[in-house]
């Protein structure tokens, strides 16, 4: 219970930290992905003339929304959590606190922001006449929870390794960029040549883009087995990441 209270405090602090001193305050959190969406839509729809394959295709922008928001939640949460321990070195050196809370809060704060943004844009799309299944929104949020578990697993791993090897946070933006383009965020699996399609299953993020598209837009499908598989992967990554974090935790102070 005290750990949870502490986590809430740090989430609040994380949200405030991000917008403390900025003119637009929290609004930026909602605008930034919208601007991103506008840029990507322009490039892909008007320059590359991207089309979503399939008969009842929902249009490229809704298709992109389903990939972009979950990706932002995942990648930004990961980027922030990676330096969570290092950034709070001063606090860790002076106050005894469960360090897991710092990593958890960094990821949770970002998922909270992106989750709210996601709900807002899904409802906005419905208002503008995009055939989004609003009744599937609670189901989609469950998908966010599952993605959160996966992100948390990677976050624990990266935050712990970052304490020892500082190169990680510098390499991470490139790594995440590579990861984004090797996930079906901008394209559908069907757009790939036949023989490469199976490779996507090795990417733990693939499931989520396809899940959100199927659940909310009715584009493509997701099976129970793939859901269980993704859940299994999330739990394994979480368990492994957390175990490594716990193992390295006693030595953080020595290397910070």
């Amino acid at each position, binding site marked *: 219970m*005290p750990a949870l209270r502490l986590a809430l405090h740090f989430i609040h602090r994380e949200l405030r930290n991000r917008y403390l001193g900025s003119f637009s305050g929290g609004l930026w959190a909602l605008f930034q992905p919208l601007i991103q969406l506008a840029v990507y839509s322009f490039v892909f729809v008007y320059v590359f003339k991207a089309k979503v394959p399939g008969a009842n295709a929902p249009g490229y922008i809704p298709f992109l929304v389903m990939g972009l928001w979950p990706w932002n939640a995942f990648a930004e949460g990961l980027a922030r959590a990676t330096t969570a321990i290092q950034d709070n070195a001063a606090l860790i*050196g002076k*106050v005894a606190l469960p360090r897991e809370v710092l990593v958890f809060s960094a990821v949770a704060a970002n998922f909270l922001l992106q989750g709210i943004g996601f709900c807002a844009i899904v409802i906005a799309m419905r208002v503008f006449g995009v055939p989004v299944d609003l009744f599937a929104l609670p189901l989609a949020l469950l998908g966010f929870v599952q993605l959160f578990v996966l992100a948390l697993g990677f976050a624990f791993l990266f935050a712990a390794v970052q304490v*020892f090897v500082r190169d990680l946070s510098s390499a991470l933006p490139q790594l995440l960029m590579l990861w984004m383009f090797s996930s079906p965020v901008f394209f559908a699996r069907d757009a790939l040549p036949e023989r490469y399609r199976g490779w996507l299953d090795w990417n733990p993020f693939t499931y989520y883009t396809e899940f959100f598209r199927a659940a909310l837009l009715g584009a493509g499908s997701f099976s129970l087995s793939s859901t269980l598989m993704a859940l299994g992967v999330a739990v394994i990554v979480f368990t492994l990441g957390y175990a*490594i974090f716990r193992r390295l935790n006693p030595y953080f102070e020595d*290397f910070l």
Partner: protein
Amino acid sequence: MQSPVLVEARRLGKTYPKVFHRRDRLRALYRLLTGGPGIDSTSVLRDVDLEVRAGQSLGLIGENGAGKSTLLKLIVGVLTPSSGEVHVHGRVGALLELGAGFHPEYTGRDNIALSAALYGLNADEARAKLPEIIDFADIGAYIDEPVKHYSSGMVVRLGFAIVAALRPDLLITDEVLAVGDESFQKKCVRWMEDYLDGGGTLILVSHSMYHVQKLCRQACWIKQGAVAASGDVFEVTQAYLAYQERKSAAQPVRQDSPSHAQEFYLIDLALNGDTADVPLVIDQGCRVGARVHVHSRDGREPVISFGVARADGTSVYGVSTEMEKQRPLRVSENVYTVEIEFPELALLPGSYLLRAHALDTEGVRLFNTLVRSITIRGESREFGLIRLKHSWPAANSETNVAP
């Protein structure tokens, strides 16, 4: 019945890894993960046994880098022991270094909320404590300013106010009082005395033997990562001070080398008949005699001045032959001698310096100075430097009151 143990350390040790090269970090990570052979490390603390019971007050003393702060951090749980174990029971309030966990961008008020959350208080409890904390910190309108605008004294005030309001079972502080101003130091010391009277437990790190002796009943002297002495506060602090003296005696005190071209110079200084340059250790209230021999180039009579100073240089008393119309005895054509005697030296226990100065016949020009250290032993709990003559005309003596 003995009170419960709050802190229990058994063969506690801490080593820090040696990380010099970029590759060392990667290797350390690999070894920690695979449980391979240990990393090269420097030992900062070893085999420390410690037990603090509820209601006790322990002072940790020692030189810089002896491992006092590391020991505190191990007790607080900020560091993990490399060997041995430490168990802490009860709510711990810790003030480690300056600005314990404050965020510089946040206001004092926000930082109070964070500290409260770190100590496990819920929002209501934190709100209830807020006026008390603000009142104790007494930093006025600064409470709504970001902590980065605070002076170091204000940071300490706020930090101490928070810990004070939490009423921990065990209070741990690390040489932070030194930063506050006089009035706040007094406030803190008064609070700690009340806290101790109320059954609180204290672990204090301080270089001020005054604070340690005033607040603590036990002391533990950490020397190069190990316990050098522990037990009664007076025994331990005096052993520590004596060690400090021996150490400074080993590096000769800066003494003017006598130049034979000078008109006057001190040849030697004997304390109680001993000219060897080692600290004189005597009991409180004993006799001290200081005798010097002076060389006079032209055979003129010198003026000799004697002074007593605290080990840090603060002057306690000074007197010269000229002031009291005394004249040195002539031993030979160019050598004079003079002795001063303090029959019952009123200095309180501690370390002092005795200085002798050679001046010219008029008592104006100062030639050379000889310095010797004196350590006064004793168990007096009085404060200050010397015992002033006193009596208690309106008081009951406890020794006369029936128990």
